[in-house]
């Protein structure tokens, strides 16, 4: 299988099929033709195809969907661009990524949205869905042209990782977005409480003398946003939760029928504040990695569906951004390529079911942005085939992202993506 080679048809045999509707089953045969799932089962097996792929030992799933990815384009070419980061996404099994509005210039106008879409059309390896900036320049003061952003193709609007300081403006943002049926995506953080912090306000920050971001910086913002969403009726998506208390409030809001969804970054499910011991600047992330109790509650929330999606929160950086004393470094990990492997470690340890992991990477995020993935006849052929037991080691050689600050380095990971199809065409194919 080679990249970018158009072909008429492809037959995938063997392996386990996760169709995105329920539990996994053994693959009855999958025929892909003209960018669509043409047939499943006996008719697929008997059909003749130009190419075939033996997926024995592999899992076949709908392509993964990432609700939070920084492609760094336009404006941050030294950290990455659409070409490099969408190839990294395909390597990670993703076929769709939502592009964060935190670019330079910020994606707060239809012109920037078009720029991103044009870049994705000409140089992107996977589908790119832009998320618009709800306030101009992400400054949290003036509304962006939300109708214009929607018409230009933004699937949602949000304020990137920056909060909106003023509750009155936040309320108006929600009410205005609701007018157009736009989903709002917010990273809940009370800026006054987070202040200059960059680490979880807990034992590790206390021992290392790091400036803390208290848990209440998140929970106070979650509560405020839930109340305002309830009042304005907007569809609210909470991005990158980090604390157990936030999960409780989210579950309660869902029970009460508030239109709210939420995601969590994979690194929040795998690491805790302990990762900062030794001042490891890779784990300077925002929101910060919190306690083991928080981590467990977040994993449980993915398992029981309270949290809808797992995201990469991919933040490729140039080396200078991380080569400094921890407080002076920029937050974020280059995470999209190792996400699946980290998720499979949770599955191996029995903390998360494989079906739940895959749902949080496919149907869960799809519902947030109005997609309906599934490996059924007639569906668009966005497919990920991975071998859960095959090993690989993240390194400058194996990573396609421009950012090399990965959460795990120097050891093998299980779970290798063999084939990623976007619209039926290979966006990533494992050479071996």
């Amino acid at each position: 299988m080679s990249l970018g080679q158009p072909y008429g048809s492809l037959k995938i045999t063997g392996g386990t099929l996760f169709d995105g509707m329920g539990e996994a089953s053994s693959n009855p045969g999958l025929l892909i033709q003209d960018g669509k799932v043409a047939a499943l089962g006996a008719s697929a097996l008997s059909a003749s195809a130009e190419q075939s792929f033996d997926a024995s030992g592999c899992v076949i799933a709908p392509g993964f969907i990432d609700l939070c990815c920084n492609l760094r384009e336009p404006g941050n070419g030294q950290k990455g661009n659409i070409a490099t980061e969408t190839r990294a996404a395909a390597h990670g099994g993703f076929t769709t990524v939502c592009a964060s509005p935190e670019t330079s210039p910020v994606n707060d106008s239809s012109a920037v949205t078009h720029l991103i879409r044009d870049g994705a059309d000409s140089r992107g390896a996977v589908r790119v869905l832009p998320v618009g900036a709800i306030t101009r320049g992400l400054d949290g003061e003036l509304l962006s042209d939300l109708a214009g952003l929607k018409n230009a193709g933004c699937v949602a609007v949000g304020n990137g990782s920056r909060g909106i300081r003023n509750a009155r403006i936040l309320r108006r943002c929600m009410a205005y977005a609701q007018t157009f049926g736009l989903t709002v995506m917010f990273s809940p953080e009370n800026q006054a409480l987070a202040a200059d912090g960059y680490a979880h306000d807990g034992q590790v920050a206390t021992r290392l003398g790091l400036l803390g971001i208290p848990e209440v910086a998140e929970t106070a913002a979650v509560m405020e946003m839930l109340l305002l969403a309830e009042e304005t009726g907007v569809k609210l998506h909470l991005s990158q939760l980090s604390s157990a208390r936030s999960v409780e409030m989210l579950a309660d809001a869902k029970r009460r029928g508030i239109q709210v969804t939420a995601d969590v970054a994979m690194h929040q499910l795998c690491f805790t504040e302990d990762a900062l011991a030794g001042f490891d600047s890779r784990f300077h992330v925002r929101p910060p990695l919190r306690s083991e109790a928080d981590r467990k509650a977040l994993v449980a929330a993915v398992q029981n569906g309270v949290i809808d999606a797992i995201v990469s929160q991919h933040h490729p950086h140039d080396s200078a951004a991380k080569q400094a004393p921890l407080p002076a470094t920029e937050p974020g990990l280059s995470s999209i390529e190792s996400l699946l492997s980290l998720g499979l470690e949770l599955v191996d340890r029995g903390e998360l079911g494989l079906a739940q992991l895959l749902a949080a990477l496919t149907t869960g995020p799809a519902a947030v942005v109005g997609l309906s993935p599934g490996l059924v006849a007639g569906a668009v052929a966005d497919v990920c085939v991975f071998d859960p037991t095959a090993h690989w080691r993240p390194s400058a050689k194996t990573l396609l992202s421009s950012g090399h600050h990965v959460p795990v380095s120097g050891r093998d990971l299980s779970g290798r993506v063999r084939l990623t199809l976007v619209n039926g065409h290979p966006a990533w194919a494992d050479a071996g």
Partner: protein
Amino acid sequence: MTANDPSPNHLQLTREGQLRHFLTLDGLNRELLTDILDTADSFIEVGERSIKKVPLLRGRTVVNLFFESSTRTRSTFELAAKRLSADVLNLDISTSATSKGESLSDTLLNLEAMASDMFVVRHSQSGAPHFIAESVTPGVAIINAGDGRHAHPTQAMLDMLTIRQHKGGFTGLKVAIVGDILHSRVARSQIRALNELGAEEVRVIAPGTLLPRDVESLGCKVEYDMARGMKDLDVVIMLRLQNERMEGALLPSEREFYRLYGLNQAKLALAKPDCIVMHPGPINRGVEIESAVADGPQSVILNQVTNGIAIRMAVMSMAMGGQMAERQQKQMNSEGARS
């Protein structure tokens, strides 16, 4: 899932357990801390000679790399290095390269090109000495002279030396640290040292706004009331209160702080009669300590300064010794591989 080795020891100790950097007291055991104190004791005698020099660091270049200004700490490091016969270069970086936009990594590359053997680093950001130790070429020792709120290990060790001189040891001691614990790298290192050396009880006495989250996890008890906190004390350590703490609603006023947490003779009388009074300096008379106490018979504040030179000589010579031993080991290994 741990991302990396959480103990700093792989960085600051050689494989044989010798010091090669001195970044934090975390992970250093009682034996090594005692070794530092004993070595410092032996250097105190050097300071009493008419010619106050030993040749342990002769031909070595020590660079005092101060990204944050300091007079006393820098001068004691300078004196310590000179008494060990090293060549000393003082760089006040806070007013030079980094203010011109040069990154810390680039500054270091330039300094390494001058073939230095040791950097004494003070920096306003927690973890800066760790970062430097990870990025310098092997063979260059890094000594932490205070980083952010994280650690000030030589200050804590000179305080331990002072306590040992006056109390004979640490077993059974009750020690309180009073004042701005939140912003204090000194307090963090002191609590760690006192716990490792076997003090019976470490108390922190401060209002809630000046205590870090989960401070008890460092190995101390919290006391809001100073009168209760002074009871049965063997040692009371006062911390400096920065003026800017009145901003941002950490404290209402210096006056209220002094009334509640300032050390005066009446409060000192609540401790054991032979309780010693310490302060890492510089003192704010009338803000955290009354002059009559600071200059009184129980005060050992000036001893601390003298001990500072001996401790820094000890740490510098031990770290250089560790670096040398490691270099020899590597040479032997490579020669062994060749023959």
